[in-house]
């Protein structure tokens, strides 16, 4: 069966609800193209989401979907994956969902090594509720709840997930769409917990509060700040702030939860037979 990208998107739901210049639609398009490219059947795909602008992403996919509560997409996805090894499970989250209210589920999904692909469109603020600061708003930046500058320090999401035990960790941007597709495809094909952060932009709130000059200027700035891991590592320490490494940042083969659990089942059944 030949699959087309349109098979994965609900045409009747388009155009999407996001603001002009928002990166979320770029991510949705990339995910749909990747699913089509990999030929994963729509009825073998489950998309879980939470709440927030990017939490609406499931609306556009003609797949199975579980639109849950704020921050819990990975917890719902964990239950799905634990009983359905044959399904491709994706959790689509914003930075509020994945890293702020859902931070606990993120580190534990990575540690538990569930075979789930988590894709985070990180636009550094809560768009849905009016541009408040999140756990990825850089220190000093202005938002609707940090008008004098954010007093907190932001998470480096990729480092967080590597630290928590994630075996596949990548970062990309809405400018590098082909690279994004390649990384998402690799993440889905990876057996175990995979994590792709998209450094996104929210021109409506974050961009406006910080006078970043609209969507085009914001994407241009993201492009300028992105570089390969190798290049980033060569930068002198004092030059590093303001830049970020992109691409595949971490790859490690690890046995995923379901494979490990099959061993548990085997041992349990053996010992049950003996007794």
């Amino acid at each position, binding site marked *: 069966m030949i699959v087309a990208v349109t098979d994965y998107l609900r045409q009747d739901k388009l155009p999407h609800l996001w603001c002009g210049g928002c990166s979320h639609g770029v991510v949705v398009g990339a995910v749909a193209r990747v699913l089509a490219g990999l030929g994963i059947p729509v009825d073998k795909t489950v998309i879980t989401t939470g709440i927030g602008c990017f939490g609406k992403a499931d609306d556009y996919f003609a797949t199975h979907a*579980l639109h849950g509560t704020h921050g819990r997409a990975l917890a*719902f996805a964990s239950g799905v994956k634990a009983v359905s090894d044959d399904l491709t499970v994706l959790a689509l989250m914003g930075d509020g969902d994945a890293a702020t209210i859902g931070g606990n589920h993120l580190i534990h999904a990575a540690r538990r090594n569930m075979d789930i692909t988590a894709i985070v469109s990180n636009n550094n603020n809560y768009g849905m509720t009016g541009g408040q600061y999140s756990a990825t708003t850089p220190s000093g930046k202005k938002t609707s709840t940090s008008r004098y500058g954010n007093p907190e320090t932001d998470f480096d999401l990729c480092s967080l997930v590597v630290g928590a035990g994630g075996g596949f960790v990548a970062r990309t941007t809405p400018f590098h769409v082909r690279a994004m597709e390649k990384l998402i495809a690799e993440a889905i094909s990876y057996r175990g917990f995979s994590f792709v952060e998209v450094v996104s932009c929210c021109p409506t709130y974050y961009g406006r509060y910080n006078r970043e000059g609209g969507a085009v200027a914001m994407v241009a700035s993201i492009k300028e700040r992105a570089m390969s891991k190798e290049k980033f590592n060569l930068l002198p320490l004092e030059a590093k702030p303001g830049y970020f490494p992109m691409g595949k940042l971490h790859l490690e083969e690890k046995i995923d939860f379901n494979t490990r659990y099959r061993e548990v089942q085997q041992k349990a059944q053996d010992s049950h037979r003996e007794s």
Partner: protein
Amino acid sequence: MVQSEVKFISGNEACAEGAFYAQARFYAGYPITPSSEIAQIASERLPTLGGCYVQMEDEIASIAAIIGASCCGVKSFTATSGPGFSLMQENLGVAIMGEVPCVIINVQRSGPSTGLATSPAQADIMQCRWGTHGDHAIIALTPSSVQECYELTIRAFNLSEKYRSPVVILSDKTVAQMREKVILFTPGEVELLERKKPTGSPGEYLSFRPDDDGIPPMASFGDPHLLRITSSTHNEQGFTDDDPSNAFTLIRRLYDKIEDNADDITQIKTYFMEDAETTFITFGITARAALNAVHKLREEGNKVGLINLLTMWPFPACKIKEAVANCRSLLVPEMNLGQLVREVERACCAKEVHSYTKSNGKNIFPGEIIQAWRDSL
């Protein structure tokens, strides 16, 4: 013929046995006293049955995971106690709004908050009913013996599948941890219900289009019929729809599919009701003390009876009213400051209703109920 197995086990063990009998094959949970035995047994037994146990990072994730697994067609459950049940309220709402069958065993302990860790209480009646926000209905079953822990857990899965709804087992620390004789059912002895699956073509299937009984058939993730579960107020397709008439139709249907079927869902057990002038109405471990009190008072020639509620929600108002039609007065003993008594008052407003409450981490003893009855005369 297969012989029934007789065991001497705790209420928690009996809940786990009931879940396995009902074909539950997924458990996600976070350990908390006095419910942890259920997790321990699930972790040991489920892998032998081809099922799966996952220990989640908290109770929010635990109920989320059982919702996710249930969406794949696997009967799923979790167990917890007060502090954990508080955390579960958020996603209990998802199971209600998304109409996802699942069973939550809440072994009540003394609160508020950490409370008297871990002393008995029966103070989660209203949290169970209204703990998650918004208008909704819930099914909650209340076992008073180890045998009832077993039977009501099987029934919880059946009701959950039939009504596409979460079901709470409102157990309590004493019932959960005491040991009694239990007769386990043989395979096939009890009918096990399964959720309705879609019968039409995948293209026509809508995740939330109800049949005439108000309950939508439920596809599973992986089926050709695409399932869309959502926590948002939605239309029959499962997409956000804020049209007021749509919102009202949905909220009403979610409520009515439970409350309109109260006769099918609710169960009460009655004792000595033929000529009872006063009826004790209670549930859980307090029903055991009340039955003992009834026996003692009957020996003295007093016409007292007992209603043991096996269902707390929907409240079995009609069945109670019918049972107490000829009684003069009612006495409601409960291990909280008076949650059940108000429901009894609402159901039986023409009767003289007395309350006996205790909220200090100790069980109510038969002598206290007898004294409360004497004081009410």
